[in-house]
């Protein structure tokens, strides 16, 4: 198993252009934000103290939640390629179980997701601490690491399910391209969820990865939002805070009910379980063919 995982990892990391393209979704987000979206948002939030500080936390939360979507998709590319080039024929004629082989692909993709998210995590923490948006504490670091891990695994399962439906490299590159472009909208990180219309908001709120972004925001924006809202008179602070949290998607509301942090966690775990089971089902069905 370990040699198959290391093979898949080597294939992924050595193909520099594949790594680049699997990071494209992230690069697009960063580019958009720093080039023009960032200013638009902070201008709209001019009533707050230093909106650029909590918006930095906002954008980094989004990045952390989607990094493992596009990178694990990229890593699963090896699986599609092996199918297309009939490399799996060589594996099937070796004394190695097919389930071990499949697990090899899954574990290596999860590892790719974890590594890439870890890199973004370090950048996030350093960048936000340098901008005084967060105060680094042991608690914060532990929470961030656990949430990053859960996000990566949940996203790996989702990517696996998508890839398990694909048979050709052409379809794979088309779908991963669409995913890279769409993921920022689906998770409400290009445009704050409150600025979208009702129907689209619902889509964002039901998309599991969005809940990872929500949880990251709750950790990373807590301090800076509390600071930012101090520009309001004391009586209006609570209301302003609730509103900005709703608009930026720090808390999701379904109707009038707030979605709690526990609920969001449950949705991520649920996605992990459901997508894994679905993938096992589709992969097994194909094996018999």
């Amino acid at each position, binding site marked *: 198993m370990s040699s198959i995982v290391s*093979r898949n990892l080597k294939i992924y990391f*050595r193909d520099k252009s594949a790594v680049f393209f699997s990071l494209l979704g992230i690069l697009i987000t960063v580019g958009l934000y720093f080039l023009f979206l960032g200013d638009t948002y902070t201008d709209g939030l001019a009533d707050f103290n230093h909106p650029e500080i909590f918006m930095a936390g906002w954008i980094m939360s989004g990045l952390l939640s989607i990094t493992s979507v596009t990178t694990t998709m990229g890593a699963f590319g090896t699986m599609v390629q092996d199918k297309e080039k009939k490399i799996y024929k*060589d594996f099937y004629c*070796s004394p190695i179980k097919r389930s071990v082989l499949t697990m090899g692909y899954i574990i290596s993709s999860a590892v790719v997701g974890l590594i890439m998210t870890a890199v973004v995590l370090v950048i996030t923490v350093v960048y936000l601490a340098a901008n005084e948006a967060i105060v680094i504490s042991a608690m914060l670091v532990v929470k961030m690491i656990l949430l990053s891990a859960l996000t990566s695994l949940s996203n790996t399962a989702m990517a696996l399910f998508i890839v398990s439906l694909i048979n050709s490299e052409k379809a794979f590159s088309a779908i991963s391209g669409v995913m890279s472009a769409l993921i920022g909208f689906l998770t409400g990180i290009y445009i704050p969820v409150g600025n979208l219309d009702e129907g689209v908001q619902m889509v964002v709120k039901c998309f599991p990865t969005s809940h990872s972004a929500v949880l990251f925001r709750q950790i990373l924006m807590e301090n800076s939002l509390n600071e930012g809202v101090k520009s309001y008179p004391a009586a209006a602070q609570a209301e302003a805070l609730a509103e900005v949290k709703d608009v930026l998607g720090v808390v999701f509301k379904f109707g009038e009910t707030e979605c709690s942090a526990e609920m969001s966690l449950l949705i991520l775990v649920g996605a992990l379980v459901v997508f894994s089971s679905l993938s096992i089902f589709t992969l097994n069905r194909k094996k018999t063919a």
Partner: protein
Amino acid sequence: MNKIVQVTSLKKSYKDVHAVKGLDFYVEEGKLFAFLGPNGAGKSTTIDMICTYLRPDSGKILLDGSEVGKNDDEIRRKIGIVFQDSVLDPILTVRENVTIRGSMYGLHGKELKEAVENACEVVGMTDFMKRPYGKLSGGQRRRVDIARALVNTPKILFLDEPTTGLDPQTRVNVWNTISDLQKQNNMTIFLTTHYMEEASDADYVVVIDDGKIAAKGTPAQLKEKYAGNYLYIVPKNKDSLLNTLKKNKITYKQNIDTISIPIVHTVDSLEILDKVRENIDSFEVIKGTMDDAFIGITGKEIRR
């Protein structure tokens, strides 16, 4: 002689296409066995079934005592396969490729390292261990493919058209590696090919066409049986020669300046030559080639 592979009434269809329609043959241990046939005859399908990749519709395959479909993992440990298309990772080095595939046989540590070194040494690729597989030439890649197939020291090596797509010089090179393997290591080699020269170097040839066995035997037997021999005569006086032939009811064919007479055995030419001795300017007896045998068997030109 020990029969290392034994195939009985093997059948396989893909939906409406009957790829293999009942094959019976065996391969003797330590021999070079060639599976010959035009494209689409069912060669690859048969190899895929023997190598446990495809499940036969019916029939039985025994490989060194283990039955395909029952002891697949045991069989997989005993075989090495060089596929028609390359199945190694172009982005990884030769050493990485062979090592990864070696580890799938449960080899590890020092044992694995030695197996990789040995396999690469046999095919003469030790100088290229650190090069990415994708950057090698076609012939070098084929050698690495063979090294990969040898990494688990198989009892039998399958090669599916190992020299297709290589230039003539490289082909000879790769071919020499294969026949050295068989002679020096006494390894059983099972190969499919559509090159006649290669088949004529084999110990035993099975010709399949349209999913069935069209002929089998040693190259010499096949040539003897299916490739006609010809006697060519350049006469002094053409008309007189033709008259003599007609009188003796010998079939002939007129070419531009020669008369060709099909004969069963080359010695049969002596009798004919005796009858027309005075009229011969020159003559030659041509023994049938594997090409002729192939055309004789399948009625098809072999693809070159």
